[in-house]
């Protein structure tokens, strides 16, 4: 402790250099904190659960999955054999189709700003089956509950997330026309009746329309095209969500679905949402690998070099001082420790401040780190990042300052004062 004043005063010696080193450390710790936040969040969502499992049934051999709507009823029931008393029946279910279009009629002006992405589904299921909405209280989900109620009364009603409403410059009560992209020549006249709860960010850019409304539109198309059905008419079911209480139930459910003769053409597969997300992330496997094993270590290497550079300059400037300390009786290891302590103090404090700011601003102000792939929610910076940041700063400072510190400990008194002889 009694050496702390010496360490602190040496850090204050060159405020500009210390500040620049700290800022460099903070920037790089921030990058690594964000990387770790994404990676740990992905690890979390791909970790298999042992209870309250959501199973996903999709087409086996084709991505994107496009199953016939005739599969919906049987799959929603878990393909349970009515004569089998041991058959597993899902606790809840939800079917999804996807309608992608634009509010812009001119194809040349279509872009992200006027994009319309919507789930085709039974609106009531949004409250009980949507990830993270299913855990909200009724008060928290009030805006959605009210929207669902209005959707039941309005066949062409749509619930649209706040982010998308802002981009479309629309609000609840407005009407919009959506020009279909995957449902070519299907244009929907929709009335915005509600939005998703603010508490759940992952649906902010998404929408929800009624399946029976789309079916009617497909029928209308067929009638106006010489009884020729729309190309998507028999492909409008993308996936089916099934909730089961535990792993054995999931295994049994999977067996029921995969052995059922009703779902063989096209064949389907059944997996947990964690497995499905893992499969989905397989497409990004190389990027994730690179981020985990190249970007993060590269940041830490650069961080070490930044600290090494600053401490090296400082040591070169202070060779005479180290010699004086040796004359006064300081041992080489004490000088090594003093230099390491300066670097580690800067690294630890900068890392802690950086992680603290990331935690406070990203979680507190932004509500999480946006990760606009699939329907991932905003990723919260984990509380653990506070010690990650500090530890990262300390470790890289230790590594970066070790050789300069070794150089300081090796200063020879007679060499430094030789000019006096």
């Amino acid at each position: 402790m009694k050496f702390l004043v010496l360490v602190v005063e040496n850090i204050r010696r060159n405020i500009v250099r210390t500040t620049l080193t700290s800022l460099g450390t903070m920037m790089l710790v921030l990058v690594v904190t964000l990387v770790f936040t994404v990676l740990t969040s992905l690890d979390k969502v791909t970790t298999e659960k042992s209870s309250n499992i959501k199973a996903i049934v999709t087409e086996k051999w084709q991505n994107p999955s496009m199953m016939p709507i005739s599969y919906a009823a049987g799959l929603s029931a878990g393909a349970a054999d009515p004569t089998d008393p041991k058959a597993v029946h899902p606790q809840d279910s939800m079917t999804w189709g996807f309608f992608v279009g634009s509010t812009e009629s001119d194809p040349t002006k279509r872009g992200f700003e006027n994009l319309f992405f919507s789930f085709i589904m039974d609106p009531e299921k949004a409250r009980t089956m949507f990830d993270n909405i299913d855990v909200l209280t009724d008060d928290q989900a009030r805006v959605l509950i009210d929207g669902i109620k209005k959707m039941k009364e309005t066949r062409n009603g749509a619930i649209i997330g706040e982010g998308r409403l802002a981009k479309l410059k629309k609000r609840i009560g407005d009407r919009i026309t959506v020009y279909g992209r995957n449902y070519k020549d299907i244009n929907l006249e929709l009335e915005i009746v509600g939005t998703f709860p603010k508490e759940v960010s992952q649906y902010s850019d998404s929408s929800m329309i009624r399946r029976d409304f789309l079916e009617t539109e497909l029928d209308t198309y067929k009638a106006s095209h010489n009884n020729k059905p729309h190309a998507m008419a028999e492909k409008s079911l993308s996936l089916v969500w099934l909730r089961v209480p535990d792993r054995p139930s999931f295994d049994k459910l999977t067996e029921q679905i995969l052995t059922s003769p009703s779902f063989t053409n096209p064949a389907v597969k059944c997996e947990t949402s964690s497995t499905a997300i893992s499969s989905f992330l397989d497409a990004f496997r190389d990027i994730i690998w690179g981020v985990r094993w190249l970007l993060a270590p590269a940041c830490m290497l650069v961080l070490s070099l930044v600290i090494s550079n600053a401490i090296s300059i400082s040591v070169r400037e202070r060779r005479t001082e180290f010699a004086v300390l040796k004359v006064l009786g300081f041992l080489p290891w004490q000088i090594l420790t003093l230099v390491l302590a300066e670097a580690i103090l800067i690294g630890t404090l900068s890392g802690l401040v950086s992680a603290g700011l990331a935690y406070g601003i990203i979680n507190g102000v932004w509500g999480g780190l946006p990760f606009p792939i699939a329907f991932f929610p905003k990723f919260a910076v984990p509380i653990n990042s506070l010690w990650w940041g500090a530890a990262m700063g300390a470790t890289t400072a230790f590594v970066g300052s070790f050789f300069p510190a070794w150089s300081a400990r090796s200063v020879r008194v007679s060499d430094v004062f030789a000019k006096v002889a």
Partner: protein
Amino acid sequence: MSATDACVEVHDVHKSFSRGSEVLDVLNGLNLVVRQGEFVALMGPSGSGKTTLLNLIAGLDQPTVGSVQVQGIEISKMSEGQLAAWRTRNIGFVFQFYHLLPVLTAFRNVELPLLLLPLSSAQRRQQVTTALDIVGLSDRMWHRPGQLSGGQQQRVGIARAIVTDPTLIVADEPTGDLDAKSADEILNLLVELKNTLNKTIVMVTHDPRAAERADRVVHLDKGRLATQAPKH
């Protein structure tokens, strides 16, 4: 002079330095005895080995051949660690260019050697205050070196040298960077330390006026003792 009177005994000391393939003999069989409480000035031309001898006496370097004893302790055989610990307690070093740490106040600079000793904060404060009082800088203890004149900085350097109450003070041209008035004050202070606290002082100097203040002037030439001149 009896052996018990001797504070420093340098016996047949040789010191060589290697520069590439060339070996430079700086000290050649030098003998010297400094009595307890004696103020000795080392003089000689550049390269005569004054500072090398001072470094050997202060335990900053080891002789190639020969022995150096300080207060009866053979320091020429000590390890680097043993020498460092020994220096803290037994040697006060005064530099020509003061070599104070610019980021520390006078108080903290003087306190530095005490950080290596098992002393409480209160004990350290007491010793530092006493040392600064002796050199007449009690009122400047919270000033940094940059806020002090050259003479004042050297006085802080002397306070740092005496704060552990060492027997031997070695000074390498302590007045070499000072004007005449400040130099005189520093020499007065060294004499006072010798007279009132019975410190043994070995001082390297080029300045005959500074050497005059010593009890004895030792001249070195080509690594050997040239003459020893007792002043009084």
